[in-house]
Protein backbone atom coordinates (compact mmCIF):
# COMPACT_ATOMS: atom_id res chain seq x y z
CA UNK A 1 0.00 0.00 0.00
CA UNK A 2 2.54 2.60 1.08
CA UNK A 3 4.98 1.42 -1.60
CA UNK A 4 2.23 1.71 -4.18
CA UNK A 5 1.43 5.20 -2.98
CA UNK A 6 5.02 6.34 -2.84
CA UNK A 7 5.40 5.22 -6.45
CA UNK A 8 2.00 6.47 -7.55
CA UNK A 9 2.59 10.15 -6.91
CA UNK A 10 5.88 10.61 -8.76
CA UNK A 11 4.73 8.37 -11.60
CA UNK A 12 1.49 10.27 -12.15
CA UNK A 13 3.28 13.58 -11.99
CA UNK A 14 5.99 12.45 -14.37
CA UNK A 15 3.51 11.19 -16.96
CA UNK A 16 1.25 14.22 -16.74
CA UNK A 17 4.07 16.72 -16.96
CA UNK A 18 5.72 14.79 -19.77
CA UNK A 19 2.41 14.90 -21.64
CA UNK A 20 1.95 18.62 -21.02
CA UNK A 21 5.49 19.88 -21.51
CA UNK A 22 7.12 17.14 -23.60
CA UNK A 23 5.68 18.17 -26.97
CA UNK A 24 6.86 21.69 -26.42
CA UNK A 25 10.38 20.52 -25.53
CA UNK A 26 10.41 18.52 -28.76
CA UNK A 27 9.57 21.70 -30.66
CA UNK A 28 12.41 23.49 -28.94
CA UNK A 29 14.81 20.69 -29.78
CA UNK A 30 13.60 20.60 -33.38
CA UNK A 31 14.27 24.30 -33.79
CA UNK A 32 18.00 23.67 -33.32
CA UNK A 33 18.06 21.07 -36.09
CA UNK A 34 20.54 21.38 -38.93
CA UNK A 35 18.27 19.44 -41.30
CA UNK A 36 15.92 20.78 -43.93
CA UNK A 37 12.68 19.35 -42.57
CA UNK A 38 10.94 19.33 -39.25
CA UNK A 39 11.96 16.17 -37.44
CA UNK A 40 12.73 14.70 -34.10
CA UNK A 41 15.30 13.71 -33.05
CA UNK A 42 16.88 16.76 -34.74
CA UNK A 43 19.48 16.14 -37.41
CA UNK A 44 22.61 17.83 -36.11
CA UNK A 45 22.74 21.14 -34.35
CA UNK A 46 22.54 24.61 -35.81
CA UNK A 47 21.07 28.00 -35.21
CA UNK A 48 20.10 28.47 -38.85
CA UNK A 49 16.35 28.16 -38.29
CA UNK A 50 16.42 30.49 -35.35
CA UNK A 51 18.28 32.95 -37.55
CA UNK A 52 15.88 32.41 -40.43
CA UNK A 53 12.89 33.46 -38.35
CA UNK A 54 14.24 36.98 -38.26
CA UNK A 55 14.68 37.16 -42.00
CA UNK A 56 11.18 36.12 -43.04
CA UNK A 57 9.47 39.33 -44.06
CA UNK A 58 5.91 38.22 -43.25
CA UNK A 59 6.95 37.06 -39.78
CA UNK A 60 8.31 40.50 -39.04
CA UNK A 61 5.14 42.16 -40.23
CA UNK A 62 2.78 39.83 -38.42
CA UNK A 63 4.86 40.00 -35.24
CA UNK A 64 4.57 43.77 -35.35
CA UNK A 65 0.83 43.46 -35.91
CA UNK A 66 0.35 41.06 -33.02
CA UNK A 67 2.47 43.22 -30.74
CA UNK A 68 0.40 46.25 -31.68
CA UNK A 69 -2.85 44.37 -31.06
CA UNK A 70 -1.69 42.84 -27.80
CA UNK A 71 -0.37 46.08 -26.36
CA UNK A 72 -2.89 48.47 -27.91
CA UNK A 73 -5.86 46.19 -27.35
CA UNK A 74 -4.93 45.57 -23.75
CA UNK A 75 -4.43 49.27 -23.07
CA UNK A 76 -7.78 50.07 -24.66
CA UNK A 77 -9.46 47.30 -22.69
CA UNK A 78 -7.98 48.72 -19.49
CA UNK A 79 -9.05 52.26 -20.34
CA UNK A 80 -12.60 50.96 -20.75
CA UNK A 81 -12.42 48.26 -18.11
CA UNK A 82 -10.96 50.12 -15.13
CA UNK A 83 -13.78 52.69 -14.88
CA UNK A 84 -16.36 49.95 -15.47
CA UNK A 85 -14.85 47.74 -12.77
CA UNK A 86 -14.77 50.72 -10.47
CA UNK A 87 -18.44 51.47 -11.11
CA UNK A 88 -19.35 47.83 -10.58
CA UNK A 89 -17.51 47.49 -7.30
CA UNK A 90 -18.05 50.93 -5.73
CA UNK A 91 -21.47 52.10 -6.84
CA UNK A 92 -25.00 50.93 -6.52
CA UNK A 93 -25.25 50.76 -10.28
CA UNK A 94 -28.67 50.33 -11.84
CA UNK A 95 -28.48 47.30 -14.12
CA UNK A 96 -25.11 46.27 -12.74
CA UNK A 97 -25.69 42.65 -13.68
CA UNK A 98 -26.55 43.58 -17.26
CA UNK A 99 -23.39 45.65 -17.58
CA UNK A 100 -21.32 42.85 -16.08
CA UNK A 101 -22.84 40.32 -18.46
CA UNK A 102 -22.30 42.50 -21.52
CA UNK A 103 -18.66 43.26 -20.79
CA UNK A 104 -17.81 39.67 -19.90
CA UNK A 105 -19.82 38.03 -22.69
CA UNK A 106 -16.98 38.00 -25.26
CA UNK A 107 -15.26 35.37 -23.12
CA UNK A 108 -18.17 32.93 -23.42
CA UNK A 109 -18.90 33.28 -27.12
CA UNK A 110 -16.50 31.38 -29.39
CA UNK A 111 -13.95 33.73 -30.93
CA UNK A 112 -14.62 32.59 -34.46
CA UNK A 113 -18.17 33.92 -34.16
CA UNK A 114 -17.00 37.26 -32.83
CA UNK A 115 -14.60 37.59 -35.74
CA UNK A 116 -17.18 36.62 -38.35
CA UNK A 117 -19.90 38.85 -36.92
CA UNK A 118 -17.52 41.78 -36.81
CA UNK A 119 -16.47 41.19 -40.40
CA UNK A 120 -20.01 40.91 -41.73
CA UNK A 121 -21.74 43.64 -39.79
CA UNK A 122 -19.09 46.18 -38.95
CA UNK A 123 -16.18 45.89 -41.32
CA UNK A 124 -18.15 45.43 -44.53
CA UNK A 125 -21.06 47.83 -43.98
CA UNK A 126 -19.01 50.59 -42.39
CA UNK A 127 -15.99 50.09 -44.64
CA UNK A 128 -13.53 50.14 -41.78
CA UNK A 129 -10.00 48.86 -42.17
CA UNK A 130 -8.98 45.35 -41.15
CA UNK A 131 -6.40 46.69 -38.70
CA UNK A 132 -8.99 48.76 -36.89
CA UNK A 133 -11.38 45.79 -36.87
CA UNK A 134 -8.70 43.54 -35.39
CA UNK A 135 -7.96 46.18 -32.81
CA UNK A 136 -11.63 46.41 -31.79
CA UNK A 137 -12.03 42.64 -31.74
CA UNK A 138 -8.97 42.14 -29.54
CA UNK A 139 -10.06 44.94 -27.23
CA UNK A 140 -13.48 43.32 -26.83
CA UNK A 141 -11.84 39.98 -26.24
CA UNK A 142 -9.51 41.29 -23.52
CA UNK A 143 -12.18 43.41 -21.85
CA UNK A 144 -13.65 40.53 -19.80
CA UNK A 145 -10.20 39.63 -18.42
CA UNK A 146 -9.44 43.26 -17.63
CA UNK A 147 -12.75 43.70 -15.80
CA UNK A 148 -12.38 40.45 -13.91
CA UNK A 149 -8.83 41.03 -12.70
CA UNK A 150 -9.25 44.72 -11.90
CA UNK A 151 -12.56 44.04 -10.13
CA UNK A 152 -10.88 41.40 -8.02
CA UNK A 153 -8.20 43.80 -6.87
CA UNK A 154 -10.77 46.54 -6.21
CA UNK A 155 -12.77 44.09 -4.10
CA UNK A 156 -9.66 43.45 -2.06
CA UNK A 157 -9.19 47.15 -1.38
CA UNK A 158 -11.31 48.79 1.29
CA UNK A 159 -13.47 51.50 -0.16
CA UNK A 160 -13.38 53.74 2.91
CA UNK A 161 -9.83 54.88 2.15
CA UNK A 162 -11.29 56.92 -0.69
CA UNK A 163 -13.69 58.59 1.71
CA UNK A 164 -10.80 59.20 4.08
CA UNK A 165 -8.89 60.89 1.26
CA UNK A 166 -11.90 63.04 0.40
CA UNK A 167 -12.30 64.12 4.01
CA UNK A 168 -8.63 65.11 4.01
CA UNK A 169 -9.36 67.50 1.17
CA UNK A 170 -8.99 65.45 -1.99
CA UNK A 171 -11.51 65.51 -4.83
CA UNK A 172 -13.19 62.23 -5.77
CA UNK A 173 -11.08 61.94 -8.91
CA UNK A 174 -7.99 62.91 -6.96
CA UNK A 175 -8.79 60.25 -4.40
CA UNK A 176 -8.96 57.66 -7.15
CA UNK A 177 -5.52 58.53 -8.45
CA UNK A 178 -3.94 59.11 -5.04
CA UNK A 179 -5.20 56.14 -3.07
CA UNK A 180 -6.95 53.68 -5.38
CA UNK A 181 -4.56 53.47 -8.31
CA UNK A 182 -1.40 52.92 -6.24
CA UNK A 183 -3.11 50.06 -4.46
CA UNK A 184 -4.47 48.26 -7.52
CA UNK A 185 -1.35 48.74 -9.62
CA UNK A 186 -0.45 45.07 -9.23
CA UNK A 187 -3.88 44.03 -10.41
CA UNK A 188 -3.73 46.36 -13.39
CA UNK A 189 -0.30 45.08 -14.42
CA UNK A 190 -1.53 41.53 -14.04
CA UNK A 191 -4.55 42.31 -16.18
CA UNK A 192 -2.19 43.80 -18.72
CA UNK A 193 -0.06 40.68 -18.85
CA UNK A 194 -3.02 38.34 -18.99
CA UNK A 195 -4.54 40.45 -21.76
CA UNK A 196 -1.26 40.60 -23.65
CA UNK A 197 -0.72 36.84 -23.60
CA UNK A 198 -4.37 36.13 -24.43
CA UNK A 199 -4.38 38.52 -27.34
CA UNK A 200 -1.02 37.46 -28.67
CA UNK A 201 -1.96 33.78 -28.73
CA UNK A 202 -5.48 34.37 -29.97
CA UNK A 203 -6.41 32.71 -33.27
CA UNK A 204 -10.16 32.28 -33.88
CA UNK A 205 -11.11 35.95 -33.54
CA UNK A 206 -8.52 36.90 -36.13
CA UNK A 207 -9.31 34.10 -38.59
CA UNK A 208 -11.68 36.06 -40.75
CA UNK A 209 -10.02 39.36 -40.05
CA UNK A 210 -7.01 39.19 -42.27
CA UNK A 211 -6.38 41.12 -45.40
CA UNK A 212 -3.55 41.79 -47.78
CA UNK A 213 -0.45 42.23 -45.67
CA UNK A 214 -2.48 42.30 -42.46
CA UNK A 215 -2.15 39.13 -40.43
CA UNK A 216 -1.59 38.31 -36.84
CA UNK A 217 1.42 36.25 -35.83
CA UNK A 218 -0.39 32.96 -35.11
CA UNK A 219 -2.44 33.15 -38.31
CA UNK A 220 0.73 33.84 -40.25
CA UNK A 221 2.40 30.83 -38.63
CA UNK A 222 -0.49 28.57 -39.61
CA UNK A 223 -0.39 29.88 -43.17
CA UNK A 224 3.38 29.40 -43.33
CA UNK A 225 3.38 25.85 -42.03
CA UNK A 226 0.77 24.81 -44.56
CA UNK A 227 3.26 25.63 -47.30
CA UNK A 228 6.70 25.08 -45.85
CA UNK A 229 7.65 22.11 -43.70
CA UNK A 230 10.95 23.38 -42.35
CA UNK A 231 11.84 23.92 -38.70
CA UNK A 232 11.49 27.70 -38.84
CA UNK A 233 7.95 27.61 -37.38
CA UNK A 234 9.33 25.45 -34.57
CA UNK A 235 12.05 28.02 -34.01
CA UNK A 236 9.52 30.83 -34.02
CA UNK A 237 7.21 28.95 -31.64
CA UNK A 238 10.11 28.45 -29.25
CA UNK A 239 11.04 32.11 -29.35
CA UNK A 240 7.45 33.26 -28.79
CA UNK A 241 6.92 30.80 -25.96
CA UNK A 242 10.14 32.01 -24.39
CA UNK A 243 8.79 35.56 -24.60
CA UNK A 244 5.43 34.66 -23.00
CA UNK A 245 6.97 32.53 -20.29
CA UNK A 246 9.58 35.20 -19.59
CA UNK A 247 6.94 37.88 -19.18
CA UNK A 248 4.73 35.75 -16.97
CA UNK A 249 7.67 34.53 -14.91
CA UNK A 250 8.86 38.09 -14.32
CA UNK A 251 5.33 39.11 -13.44
CA UNK A 252 5.02 36.30 -10.93
CA UNK A 253 8.41 37.19 -9.49
CA UNK A 254 7.77 40.88 -9.06
CA UNK A 255 4.00 41.12 -8.73
CA UNK A 256 2.80 37.78 -7.44
CA UNK A 257 0.82 37.58 -10.70
CA UNK A 258 -1.04 34.41 -9.68
CA UNK A 259 -2.70 36.26 -6.80
CA UNK A 260 -4.72 38.23 -9.30
CA UNK A 261 -5.67 35.76 -12.05
Amino acid at each position, binding site marked *: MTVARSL*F*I*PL*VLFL*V*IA*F*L*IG*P*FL*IIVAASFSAGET*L*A*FPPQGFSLRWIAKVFTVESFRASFGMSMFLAIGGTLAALV*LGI*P*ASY*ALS*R*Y*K*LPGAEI*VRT*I*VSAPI*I*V*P*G*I*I*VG*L*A*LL*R*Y*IVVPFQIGITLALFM*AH*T*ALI*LPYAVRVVSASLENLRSDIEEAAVLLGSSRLGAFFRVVMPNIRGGILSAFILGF*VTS*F*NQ*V*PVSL*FLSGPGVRTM*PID*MIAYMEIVFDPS*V*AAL*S*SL*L*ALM*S*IGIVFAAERFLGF*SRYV
Partner: protein
Amino acid sequence: MFQNRAEALALALPAAIFAAAVFLVPVVILLSDGFRNPAGGWTISAYIDFFSSPLNQAVFLRTLKLGALVTVVSAVIGYAAAFAIVNLEPGMKGKVTGLVVLPLMISPVARTYAWIVILGRTGIVNQAFQALGISDVPLRILFSETAIFIGLLQLFLPLMIISLISALENMPKDAVPAARVLGANWFQVFWKVILPLTKEGLVVGGTLVFTGCLTAYITPAILGGSKVLMLETLMYQQVSVSNNFVAASVIAFILIVMSFAANILLKRVATARNKQRRAAA
Protein backbone atom coordinates in the same frame (compact mmCIF):
# COMPACT_ATOMS: atom_id res chain seq x y z
CA MET B 1 -20.95 52.18 -1.77
CA PHE B 2 -21.41 55.50 -3.56
CA GLN B 3 -24.93 56.42 -4.49
CA ASN B 4 -24.56 58.78 -7.43
CA ARG B 5 -26.19 57.03 -10.39
CA ALA B 6 -25.10 59.44 -13.09
CA GLU B 7 -21.46 59.01 -12.08
CA ALA B 8 -21.80 55.24 -12.02
CA LEU B 9 -23.34 55.15 -15.46
CA ALA B 10 -20.73 57.51 -16.88
CA LEU B 11 -18.03 55.13 -15.68
CA ALA B 12 -19.65 51.89 -16.76
CA LEU B 13 -21.31 52.85 -20.02
CA PRO B 14 -18.27 53.30 -22.29
CA ALA B 15 -17.22 49.69 -21.71
CA ALA B 16 -20.77 48.40 -21.99
CA ILE B 17 -21.48 50.37 -25.14
CA PHE B 18 -18.21 49.28 -26.70
CA ALA B 19 -18.84 45.62 -25.92
CA ALA B 20 -22.39 45.92 -27.16
CA ALA B 21 -21.43 47.63 -30.41
CA VAL B 22 -18.40 45.55 -31.28
CA PHE B 23 -19.59 42.27 -29.93
CA LEU B 24 -23.19 41.92 -28.84
CA VAL B 25 -25.05 43.59 -31.69
CA PRO B 26 -23.07 42.00 -34.55
CA VAL B 27 -23.27 38.58 -32.91
CA VAL B 28 -27.01 38.87 -32.36
CA ILE B 29 -27.54 39.91 -35.99
CA LEU B 30 -25.35 37.02 -37.10
CA LEU B 31 -27.36 34.59 -35.04
CA SER B 32 -30.69 35.94 -36.23
CA ASP B 33 -29.60 35.38 -39.85
CA GLY B 34 -30.01 31.66 -39.35
CA PHE B 35 -33.67 32.13 -38.45
CA ARG B 36 -34.54 34.32 -41.45
CA ASN B 37 -36.18 33.27 -44.69
CA PRO B 38 -35.57 35.19 -47.91
CA ALA B 39 -38.92 36.96 -47.55
CA GLY B 40 -37.80 38.40 -44.25
CA GLY B 41 -39.93 36.20 -41.98
CA TRP B 42 -38.81 33.82 -39.30
CA THR B 43 -38.08 30.16 -39.92
CA ILE B 44 -36.08 27.26 -38.61
CA SER B 45 -35.68 25.68 -42.02
CA ALA B 46 -31.94 26.40 -41.98
CA TYR B 47 -31.67 24.24 -38.89
CA ILE B 48 -33.67 21.45 -40.48
CA ASP B 49 -31.45 21.66 -43.56
CA PHE B 50 -28.34 21.65 -41.44
CA PHE B 51 -29.27 18.64 -39.38
CA SER B 52 -30.60 16.66 -42.34
CA SER B 53 -27.14 16.51 -43.86
CA PRO B 54 -25.35 13.33 -42.72
CA LEU B 55 -22.02 15.13 -42.90
CA ASN B 56 -23.24 17.86 -40.57
CA GLN B 57 -24.76 15.30 -38.21
CA ALA B 58 -21.44 13.53 -38.08
CA VAL B 59 -19.58 16.77 -37.33
CA PHE B 60 -22.07 17.75 -34.64
CA LEU B 61 -21.88 14.35 -32.97
CA ARG B 62 -18.11 14.30 -33.27
CA THR B 63 -17.88 17.67 -31.56
CA LEU B 64 -20.13 16.50 -28.73
CA LYS B 65 -18.32 13.19 -28.47
CA LEU B 66 -14.82 14.64 -28.46
CA GLY B 67 -15.87 17.36 -26.02
CA ALA B 68 -17.40 14.85 -23.64
CA LEU B 69 -14.55 12.38 -24.00
CA VAL B 70 -11.85 14.97 -23.41
CA THR B 71 -13.80 16.26 -20.40
CA VAL B 72 -14.18 12.82 -18.85
CA VAL B 73 -10.59 11.74 -19.49
CA SER B 74 -9.22 15.02 -18.25
CA ALA B 75 -11.31 14.62 -15.10
CA VAL B 76 -9.86 11.15 -14.47
CA ILE B 77 -6.28 12.22 -15.12
CA GLY B 78 -6.99 15.53 -13.39
CA TYR B 79 -8.02 13.87 -10.13
CA ALA B 80 -4.92 11.69 -10.08
CA ALA B 81 -2.64 14.63 -10.89
CA ALA B 82 -4.34 17.09 -8.54
CA PHE B 83 -4.33 14.53 -5.74
CA ALA B 84 -0.63 13.91 -6.29
CA ILE B 85 0.10 17.65 -6.37
CA VAL B 86 -1.77 18.61 -3.20
CA ASN B 87 0.10 15.89 -1.36
CA LEU B 88 3.48 17.36 -2.25
CA GLU B 89 5.41 19.47 0.21
CA PRO B 90 4.68 23.21 -0.21
CA GLY B 91 7.82 24.26 -2.10
CA MET B 92 7.55 21.37 -4.53
CA LYS B 93 3.83 21.95 -4.90
CA GLY B 94 4.37 25.48 -6.19
CA LYS B 95 6.95 24.35 -8.73
CA VAL B 96 4.87 21.45 -10.05
CA THR B 97 1.78 23.65 -10.25
CA GLY B 98 3.88 26.13 -12.20
CA LEU B 99 4.86 23.39 -14.66
CA VAL B 100 1.21 22.44 -15.09
CA VAL B 101 0.22 26.07 -15.75
CA LEU B 102 3.18 26.78 -18.01
CA PRO B 103 1.61 25.36 -21.20
CA LEU B 104 -1.24 27.87 -20.86
CA MET B 105 1.26 30.62 -21.60
CA ILE B 106 2.43 28.97 -24.81
CA SER B 107 0.64 29.69 -28.05
CA PRO B 108 -1.85 26.95 -28.94
CA VAL B 109 -0.35 27.03 -32.43
CA ALA B 110 3.01 25.97 -31.03
CA ARG B 111 1.45 23.39 -28.75
CA THR B 112 -0.57 21.84 -31.55
CA TYR B 113 2.29 22.04 -34.00
CA ALA B 114 4.33 19.81 -31.75
CA TRP B 115 1.91 16.96 -32.31
CA ILE B 116 2.70 16.99 -36.03
CA VAL B 117 6.28 16.17 -35.15
CA ILE B 118 5.16 13.45 -32.78
CA LEU B 119 2.24 11.89 -34.61
CA GLY B 120 3.20 12.51 -38.24
CA ARG B 121 4.17 9.81 -40.76
CA THR B 122 7.83 10.17 -39.87
CA GLY B 123 7.06 11.27 -36.32
CA ILE B 124 8.39 9.83 -33.11
CA VAL B 125 5.46 7.50 -32.54
CA ASN B 126 5.71 5.93 -35.98
CA GLN B 127 9.49 5.66 -35.67
CA ALA B 128 9.06 3.89 -32.38
CA PHE B 129 6.34 1.57 -33.68
CA GLN B 130 8.48 0.59 -36.64
CA ALA B 131 11.58 0.13 -34.55
CA LEU B 132 9.67 -2.09 -32.15
CA GLY B 133 8.10 -4.02 -35.02
CA ILE B 134 4.55 -3.13 -34.01
CA SER B 135 3.89 -2.06 -37.56
CA ASP B 136 5.99 -1.99 -40.74
CA VAL B 137 4.17 0.79 -42.56
CA PRO B 138 3.76 4.21 -40.96
CA LEU B 139 0.37 4.49 -39.28
CA ARG B 140 -1.91 7.35 -40.10
CA ILE B 141 -2.44 8.95 -36.73
CA LEU B 142 -2.48 12.56 -37.83
CA PHE B 143 -5.73 13.90 -39.32
CA SER B 144 -7.90 11.63 -37.21
CA GLU B 145 -10.18 11.90 -34.24
CA THR B 146 -7.44 10.36 -32.14
CA ALA B 147 -5.07 13.16 -33.03
CA ILE B 148 -7.69 15.82 -32.24
CA PHE B 149 -8.48 14.07 -28.98
CA ILE B 150 -4.83 14.03 -27.92
CA GLY B 151 -4.35 17.64 -28.94
CA LEU B 152 -7.43 18.87 -27.10
CA LEU B 153 -6.61 16.85 -24.02
CA GLN B 154 -3.15 18.35 -23.86
CA LEU B 155 -4.54 21.83 -24.46
CA PHE B 156 -7.15 21.78 -21.70
CA LEU B 157 -5.93 19.31 -19.09
CA PRO B 158 -4.17 22.12 -17.15
CA LEU B 159 -7.49 23.92 -16.63
CA MET B 160 -9.02 20.79 -15.11
CA ILE B 161 -6.02 20.09 -12.89
CA ILE B 162 -5.98 23.65 -11.55
CA SER B 163 -9.70 23.58 -10.78
CA LEU B 164 -9.34 20.28 -8.98
CA ILE B 165 -6.27 21.39 -7.04
CA SER B 166 -8.16 24.32 -5.56
CA ALA B 167 -11.18 22.10 -4.87
CA LEU B 168 -9.04 19.51 -3.10
CA GLU B 169 -7.28 22.21 -1.11
CA ASN B 170 -10.58 23.62 0.08
CA MET B 171 -11.70 20.21 1.24
CA PRO B 172 -11.75 19.73 5.04
CA LYS B 173 -8.34 18.32 6.00
CA ASP B 174 -9.63 15.43 8.06
CA ALA B 175 -12.43 14.22 5.75
CA VAL B 176 -10.34 11.50 4.12
CA PRO B 177 -8.65 10.17 7.28
CA ALA B 178 -12.04 10.20 9.00
CA ALA B 179 -13.56 8.08 6.25
CA ARG B 180 -10.58 5.71 6.35
CA VAL B 181 -10.94 5.31 10.10
CA LEU B 182 -14.58 4.43 9.54
CA GLY B 183 -13.40 1.59 7.32
CA ALA B 184 -13.97 2.94 3.82
CA ASN B 185 -11.70 1.59 1.10
CA TRP B 186 -10.03 3.96 -1.34
CA PHE B 187 -12.74 3.55 -3.94
CA GLN B 188 -15.43 4.37 -1.38
CA VAL B 189 -13.39 7.28 -0.07
CA PHE B 190 -13.22 8.75 -3.54
CA TRP B 191 -16.85 8.12 -4.41
CA LYS B 192 -18.42 9.04 -1.08
CA VAL B 193 -16.08 11.71 0.28
CA ILE B 194 -13.73 13.28 -2.25
CA LEU B 195 -16.11 13.50 -5.18
CA PRO B 196 -19.02 15.16 -3.34
CA LEU B 197 -16.66 17.59 -1.61
CA THR B 198 -14.89 18.60 -4.83
CA LYS B 199 -17.96 18.57 -7.05
CA GLU B 200 -17.85 22.30 -7.48
CA GLY B 201 -14.26 22.28 -8.72
CA LEU B 202 -15.04 19.40 -11.03
CA VAL B 203 -17.92 21.33 -12.55
CA VAL B 204 -15.80 24.45 -12.99
CA GLY B 205 -13.00 22.45 -14.60
CA GLY B 206 -15.45 20.41 -16.66
CA THR B 207 -17.15 23.49 -18.05
CA LEU B 208 -13.85 25.12 -18.90
CA VAL B 209 -12.62 22.00 -20.69
CA PHE B 210 -15.88 21.27 -22.51
CA THR B 211 -16.33 24.90 -23.64
CA GLY B 212 -12.67 24.98 -24.61
CA CYS B 213 -13.13 21.91 -26.83
CA LEU B 214 -16.15 23.45 -28.53
CA THR B 215 -14.40 26.70 -29.28
CA ALA B 216 -10.94 25.41 -30.13
CA TYR B 217 -10.14 26.07 -33.73
CA ILE B 218 -6.46 25.43 -34.21
CA THR B 219 -6.36 21.90 -32.87
CA PRO B 220 -9.06 20.43 -35.11
CA ALA B 221 -7.78 22.54 -38.00
CA ILE B 222 -4.19 21.32 -37.74
CA LEU B 223 -4.67 17.82 -36.33
CA GLY B 224 -7.97 17.00 -38.04
CA GLY B 225 -7.12 18.39 -41.45
CA SER B 226 -9.84 19.22 -43.94
CA LYS B 227 -11.65 15.88 -43.65
CA VAL B 228 -12.11 15.29 -39.94
CA LEU B 229 -14.09 18.39 -39.04
CA MET B 230 -15.46 19.76 -35.81
CA LEU B 231 -18.11 22.48 -35.62
CA GLU B 232 -15.56 25.31 -35.53
CA THR B 233 -13.64 24.06 -38.52
CA LEU B 234 -16.87 23.27 -40.35
CA MET B 235 -18.01 26.83 -39.77
CA TYR B 236 -14.75 28.19 -41.13
CA GLN B 237 -15.14 26.01 -44.23
CA GLN B 238 -18.74 27.08 -44.74
CA VAL B 239 -17.65 30.70 -44.79
CA SER B 240 -14.34 30.64 -46.57
CA VAL B 241 -15.01 27.79 -49.01
CA SER B 242 -18.78 27.73 -49.58
CA ASN B 243 -19.65 31.32 -48.70
CA ASN B 244 -22.63 29.84 -46.88
CA PHE B 245 -23.30 32.40 -44.20
CA VAL B 246 -26.62 30.91 -43.19
CA ALA B 247 -24.98 27.61 -42.31
CA ALA B 248 -22.29 29.55 -40.45
CA SER B 249 -24.98 31.30 -38.46
CA VAL B 250 -26.62 27.98 -37.63
CA ILE B 251 -23.32 26.54 -36.42
CA ALA B 252 -22.62 29.70 -34.43
CA PHE B 253 -25.96 29.37 -32.70
CA ILE B 254 -25.38 25.71 -31.91
CA LEU B 255 -21.94 26.52 -30.50
CA ILE B 256 -23.29 29.31 -28.35
CA VAL B 257 -26.18 27.21 -27.08
CA MET B 258 -23.73 24.46 -26.18
CA SER B 259 -21.37 26.84 -24.33
CA PHE B 260 -24.22 28.50 -22.51
CA ALA B 261 -25.71 25.16 -21.55
CA ALA B 262 -22.37 24.18 -20.04
CA ASN B 263 -22.10 27.56 -18.33
CA ILE B 264 -25.60 27.40 -16.86
CA LEU B 265 -24.94 23.90 -15.64
CA LEU B 266 -21.91 25.27 -13.80
CA LYS B 267 -23.89 28.03 -12.14
CA ARG B 268 -26.71 25.66 -11.24
CA VAL B 269 -24.46 23.30 -9.39
CA ALA B 270 -22.58 26.12 -7.69
CA THR B 271 -25.75 27.85 -6.45
CA ALA B 272 -27.32 24.57 -5.42
CA ARG B 273 -24.33 24.12 -3.17
CA ASN B 274 -24.55 27.66 -1.82
CA LYS B 275 -28.19 27.12 -0.95
CA GLN B 276 -27.29 23.97 0.91
CA ARG B 277 -24.66 25.88 2.84
CA ARG B 278 -27.04 28.71 3.67
CA ALA B 279 -29.64 26.22 4.80
CA ALA B 280 -27.06 24.57 7.02
CA ALA B 281 -25.96 27.89 8.55
